[in-house]
Each structure stands twice: as structure tokens, then as C-alpha cells.
């Protein structure tokens, strides 16, 4: 029982971190059908800059804010210089964002060296809660709370605000949104920066959680996020949330019981979804085939 609860908490918190990364990917894809391979690069930049700022200033809050700011700045550069020139050309988008990914993760090594760096938990989040033999690590609870709050905030943004309305309409018919006097390019930049901020935040939260960060982490998590986005259905926020939790929880259990197969598990999930419902759990736009 203790093991079960611990694994569940682990899984949910990992799942929510993946969700932060996947949310941006799926929103960007839904609005502009741009598949941004470089998204994982923003995540790993968030992780490193968060860890670095925390070490320098000893303020966790500042670390998170700094990571988000840096992530957004890089996101702006990506959008402006890599993605805008290749709008509408899927193959070139794929190719160029992969290049962006490479440059982002390699430049990590220039700033912080090629070796993994250690990250410590902030003091007030160290330790754990204990109930009858069940040990729950504080930081994981913190991640779960933050993740849920962000999901709620995103949901409110999309369903209750005017800009959310514009985004939802844009996903369905970009041209018509323009014809209503709304600047779709501006809207896209907004969504892109939002996605970058979420990815960087995800990275910054992950760093103390895993205790060590390394440049290749970006690609690893990007693949996880892609799997989640496909399983959930391209362009669907709820789908991504659900799939993140599935992947996170299933991964946690797998890592405990059959550790060698944990990545294979995700591939298996992916293969099943692609075979049975290529549009994903909650995808309806028919982005597949």
C-alpha cells in the first residue's frame, strides 16, 4: 500500500511536469499546426538557468522567475527567427526546429560545461510528510499543487478570457479570426511565449526534483512530451493533461517494477494509440492521416 501511494504521488508529479511541457506544444500545434521540436530545448534551458540562479541567489522564487524570463526570451528568438520564415511548410518546420533543438541543448554545454550539474532543494521544501508509514516527499506535493494550479489557470485562460476565446477560434479557422480584426500573428506569438514560459517553468521545477540536470535531458523530455501530445490528441489541452498523467503514473510503476522497460512502455502506449485511434484520446480535428 505504501509503495502504491508513493508511486502514485511520484507518477502524478512527474506527469504534471510533463504536462507543463506538453501544454505549450499542443497549444502551438493546435493554433498554427507548427510542431516545435525545439520545445524541449526551452525546458532544459529552464532547468539549467533555474538551477544556476538558485545557486547564485539562494532564492527559489527568483530562480523560477528567472528561468521563465530566460525561457520566454529564447522562445521569442525561436519564433521570430526560426519558425516565422517557414510558416506553412511542415517539412521545413520539422527540419529547422530540430536544428533549433540542437543549438539550444549544445549551447547549454558552452555556458555550464558538458557535465551534469547537481541541484539542491530549497530548504523549506526539503523533507517529507509521514502518515502511518506512508512517506510523501514535500517537494512532490509542491510540484503537484503547482501543476494543478497551472492547469486550472490555463483552463480558465482558454475558457473564460477574451484571448482564450480568440485562441480557441483560431484553432478552428485562422482566416476567419483575422477577418474579425484579430491579429493572428500576435496571437501566435502570445501562445508561443506562453508555451515557452510553461516549458521553462517545467524545467526549473524538475531540476531540484531530479537533483541533477544535464543537456541531453531536453531531448529526453521532448520525446516524452511528444508522446503525450500524440496520445492525448494534437491540439487538445485536456487530452494532454490526461495523457501526461497516464504516462507519468505508468512510468513510475514501470520504473519500480520493471525499470528496464520504462521507455518501451511509452512506445507501447503510443503504438496502441496510433493503431486504435490515430487522432489521440481527445483529438477530433483529424490531424492524423
Amino acid at each position, binding site marked *: 500500500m505504501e509503495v502504491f501511494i508513493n508511486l502514485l504521488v511520484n507518477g502524478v508529479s512527474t506527469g504534471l511536469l510533463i504536462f507543463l511541457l506538453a501544454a505549450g506544444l499542443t497549444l502551438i500545434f493546435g493554433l498554427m499546426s507548427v*510542431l516545435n*521540436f525545439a520545445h524541449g530545448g526551452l525546458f532544459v534551458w529552464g532547468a539549467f538557468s533555474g538551477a544556476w540562479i538558485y545557486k547564485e541567489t539562494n532564492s527559489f522564487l527568483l530562480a523560477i522567475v528567472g528561468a521563465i524570463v530566460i525561457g520566454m526570451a529564447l522562445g521569442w528568438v525561436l519564433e521570430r527567427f*526560426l519558425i516565422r*520564415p*517557414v510558416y506553412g511548410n*511542415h*517539412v*521545413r518546420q*520539422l*527540419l*529547422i526546429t*530540430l*536544428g*533549433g533543438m*540542437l*543549438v539550444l541543448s*549544445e*549551447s547549454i*554545454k*558552452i555556458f555550464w560545461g558538458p557535465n551534469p550539474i547537481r541541484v539542491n532543494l530549497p530548504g523549506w521544501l526539503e523533507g517529507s510528510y509521514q502518515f502511518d508509514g506512508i512517506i510523501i516527499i514535500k517537494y512532490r506535493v509542491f510540484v503537484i499543487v503547482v501543476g494543478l494550479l497551472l492547469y486550472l489557470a490555463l483552463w480558465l485562460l482558454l475558457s473564460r478570457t477574451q484571448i482564450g476565446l480568440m485562441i480557441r477560434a483560431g484553432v478552428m479557422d485562422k482566416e476567419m479570426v483575422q477577418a474579425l480584426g484579430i491579429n493572428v500573428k500576435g496571437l501566435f506569438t502570445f501562445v508561443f511565449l506562453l508555451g515557452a514560459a510553461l516549458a521553462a517553468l517545467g524545467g526549473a521545477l524538475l531540476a531540484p526534483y531530479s537533483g541533477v540536470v544535464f543537456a541531453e535531458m531536453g*531531448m*529526453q523530455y521532448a*520525446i516524452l512530451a*511528444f*508522446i503525450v501530445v*500524440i496520445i492525448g490528441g*494534437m491540439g487538445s489541452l485536456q487530452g494532454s493533461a490526461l495523457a501526461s498523467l497516464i504516462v507519468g503514473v505508468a512510468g513510475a510503476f514501470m520504473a519500480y517494477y520493471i525499470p*528496464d522497460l520504462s*521507455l*518501451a512502455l*511509452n*512506445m507501447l502506449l*503510443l*503504438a496502441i494509440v*496510433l*493503431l486504435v485511434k*490515430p487522432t489521440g484520446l481527445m483529438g477530433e480535428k483529424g*490531424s*492524423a*492521416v
Partner: protein
Amino acid sequence: MRGLFHKVPLYWGLAIMLFMLLFPFVNDSRSMLILLTQIFIFAIFAMSFDILLGYTGIVSFGHCMFFGIGAYSTAIIFNHLEATLLNFMIGLAIGIILSALVSYIIGSLSLRLKSHFYAMLTLAVSQLFLVLAEKWRGLTHGGDGFTFSVPDVFKDRTSFYYITLISVAVVFILLKLFTESSTGKVLKAISQNEYRAEALGYKSLHYKLIASVTAGVAASFSGALYAVSLRFINTNVFSIEVTLDALLMTMIGGLGTLAGAIAGAGIIEFLRHYLSELAMTYPIFERWTIILGFLYIVVLLVFPSGLAGFIKRINLKNKRKMKKKGELQRVA
């Protein structure tokens, strides 16, 4: 054979081949031979990628897996059995069969999906192979890798140089014939207008499968040669950088030309060689991957059709100029 090779490129090809055949007599610098051997091996790899991206329009981000399968199959055979040519053939055959199988399975699962999905799926599967190679230590010795001995004919730099040179030439001719065959034309047609190709009665999935199996097999061959050239292997052969090399080489040389892939392999390998030499004095160049990354982005943004496209454009301009001149003269 008219139409298969236009005359001028044929002469050029023969001249370059002749030069390469004579090269070891002119210059026996060991490092130069090694560099050229490396270029030949990667030229095969890049050509195999060109079949996918350039001729069929399939974006695969996991091409390294076939390279790695070929490399590991040969390496593991040599690790367990004697270093004979026969065993090389066995290792090669295993690699090729495995690659054909893997590419067939992945292809039939996902080639009917949109390009995004295929790109992602191949990336994910190739990472799976990376993990597999790291975890299956009994066979692969994990990330540390292992060394092995190879037949003597491969050990001698000059003879290995010729083996790889002839391999490039043979693979080039085979792939050229393939792209000029009826199947090759259908591939080209699919990359331009898939819907229309279907309407002509071609089942595009079958043709894409043929392309991806062909590419997988050729990549596996280059991987085997690569392993032999190093006499050492580790999980790096499954890394995303290997796929990126293929991308970079074909993009720089120009898609859909095969010769462009060879030229691209030459450019990238030379560049890498000199950059790593520079790194001895300027440590910043240790991170030459980032330079290649920037180069790749610049090529994509500024010369989307690569070196070959650039040359074609200049030729076209000249032709148009000549034509104009002719017209003017006629008017005069």
C-alpha cells in the same frame, strides 16, 4: 543508357573516381586517408537518407537507428567470432536483415500518418534503441562500448580506403539505378503530389515502404563499415547527432541528387576535421556541434535547396541569359 546519366556529370564522376583511385599514390598521409575513408562511409549514409527525404519526401529523425544496427551487428559478431571476411559478411547480413525488418515494421505502422508523426515516431524508436544498447550490457557493454579486431584487409588503411571507395561507387550506382527505375519515378511523383500519384493507381504506402527499407538497408551497410573503421563501438552510433549528420549532409549538398549527399558528406567531414584541429588552440571549437547546428539552420533558411540547387539556379540563370542574348541577336 542515355537519360540515366547526362554526359557531363558522368565525365565529372569518372574524373573524381579516377582521382580518388590514384590519391593514395600521390599522398600517403595517414590522417588524410582516414578522413577520406570516413567521408566515403558517411557519403553512403547520407545517400541513404537522401532516398527518404530527397526522393520520397519522408522526414525521419531516427535514421541513426539503422546506422547503429549495422554497426552493432558487425561489432558483436567480431566480438564473439573470429575476425574473418566471412564473419564480416554474416554480421553485415544480420544488420541488413534487422534494418529491413525494423524499417518495414515502423513504416507500415506509421507511414500512413502525417509527416509530424513519422518524424517523432522514428525519433522515439531510435532513442529506444539507444536505451536498449545501454541496458543490454551483456551484448553491448553499455555506454562504455568495446573494442574488437577486424580482418587484416580492413586493418590496412590503404586497402580499407579502396574498399570504402568502391563501396561508395557501387552504392551510388545502385541507388542511382533505383531512383531512375519505374519505382524511383513513382517515389519522386509521390513526393511532389501524393494525392495525384494515388489517383494514377499507385498505392503510395507500398512505395514509401520500399523507399524506407532501401534507405534502412543502405544505412545499415554504412554503419557496418563505420564500426570496422573504428574497431570500437559504443552507444554513440544511436545518438541523435548521427541522424543530424545525415540531415546536414543532404541539406548542404542538396536534396534529391545523391551526388549532393556525397558532396555534403565531404564538406561536413572536412569541416569537422578542421574545427576539431582548431579546438586544440581555441577550446570554444570543442563544441563544434553547435557550429554545425547553426550552419544547418542557415542552410535551411538561406539555401533551402542546398549546394546542388544553388548550382542549378546559377546554371538556369546563365541559360536564360544566353537565351535572351540569342533572342536579341535574332531581333538585331
